[in-house]
């Protein structure tokens, strides 16, 4: 009895610690990231994180906590990244923190919208979700304008192709570094909903 409560207490404390670590502010120096940005990141993500290649995510304005976690996850094989893994392999903890702060400090520019007719439908799903299938409103976690938070990534101004690809990766279980939340959501999203919401996200600043 005592043992069990102690276990639960320890579990609770452990979880709380893990969470506070995830929420801890990223400490570093964005100005020290410039050399790496201009040699390593620029080709795919652009000099200011507003890269032009649809399959590679926009990073500008993304939360530093999220960026740092993704780099760590690529490095530790917790997120599949055939392209990213070799690029982060040689980065130090300081490099990653500096890069995270650099891209977090850049201004996001809306991405190209391929099919404007889908934007309204995408906004509806983003704002309201789909009660029947159990897709929550995306805005619940990602913010009313897709701006994200320290725990949930910014999704506004993202490339259409990248968003679609990630939702599909979550749905198929290929990507699962998300505390299962997006996996659950993605498995409930239809092809049409995925395409529509991706268009809407691209259109957001």
């Amino acid at each position: 009895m005592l043992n069990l409560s102690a276990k639960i207490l320890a579990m609770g404390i452990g979880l709380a610690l893990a969470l506070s670590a995830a929420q801890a502010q990223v400490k570093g120096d964005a100005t020290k990231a410039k050399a790496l940005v201009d040699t390593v990141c620029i080709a795919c993500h652009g000099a200011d994180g507003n890269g032009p290649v649809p399959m590679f995510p926009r990073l500008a304005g993304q939360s530093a906590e999220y960026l740092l976690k993704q780099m760590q996850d690529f490095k530790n094989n917790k997120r599949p990244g055939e392209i990213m893994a070799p690029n982060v392999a040689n980065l130090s903890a300081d490099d990653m923190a500096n890069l995270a702060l650099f891209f977090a400090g850049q201004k996001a520019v809306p991405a190209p919208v391929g099919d404007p007719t889908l934007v309204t439908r995408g906004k509806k799903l983003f704002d309201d979700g789909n009660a029947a299938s159990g897709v929550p409103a995306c805005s619940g976690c990602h913010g009313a304008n897709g701006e994200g938070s320290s725990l949930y990534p910014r999704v506004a101004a993202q490339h259409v192709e990248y968003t679609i690809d990630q939702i599909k990766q979550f749905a198929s279980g290929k990507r699962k570094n998300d505390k299962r939340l997006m996996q659950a959501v993605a498995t409930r999203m239809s092809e049409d909903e995925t395409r529509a919401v991706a268009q809407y996200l691209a259109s957001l600043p």
Partner: protein
Amino acid sequence: MKFIAVIPILFALGSLPAWADALQQPRAPGIESKGYVWNKPNKEQIFALKHKADPVKGKAAYRVCQGCHKPDASGRGDADYPQLAGQHTTVLIKQLVDVRAGKRDNPKMHPFVGEWAVTTEEISDIAAYLNSLPIPTTNSKGDGKHLDRGFAVYEKSCADCHGDAGEGYGDKFYPMVASQHYAYLLYESLQIREGTRRNANPKMVRIIKKYSDEDLQAVADYMSRLPPPVGKLAPATVADPGKK
């Protein structure tokens, strides 16, 4: 050649079920089981009930809920998402942990209340935050045609536990039913009557068994129209009391 073709199949067979299982709600013993006690808190519930809750932390943790239950915790009248604002903390903790443990079946909600989504402390914090919220009366209502019948059923069979004004009784895990969505009240009443709400109070199952669908529609309509307890009404709805 043959060997190479087999690898992806093995991979799919080996990895996919494990991954899919992780997203499934577990099934804990419920009302169908011997020795079932509906209101006996499990270890986690005891911990959450005793925890010194912080509504500010609860607001932050509620983020993962609001995609469905809405930022003002008003839920959705067009489906079966209950209004949570102003609900008793004890009720919220019990229901959240029951869904988490698989004692109340809700596969739709389960991924968002698993231990990967919220800690036990956060469950307690979320409950305190929701309890502090004013209650909107924009909840869905029934057709209003059988409110006399609804009133009669309520007074006869519901008021003893849920209170004359539908305010519930937190100490006993009896939920507030006033200003709850009609669709949700009806859905849950039917589930309880059919025995598929597996964390129900057996006493309520016995009582509700004798009522027809029409009775339950009428009483759900009646409860949905009961105003929130004094001081719990959302300010935005005070100015518009006639709104249905």
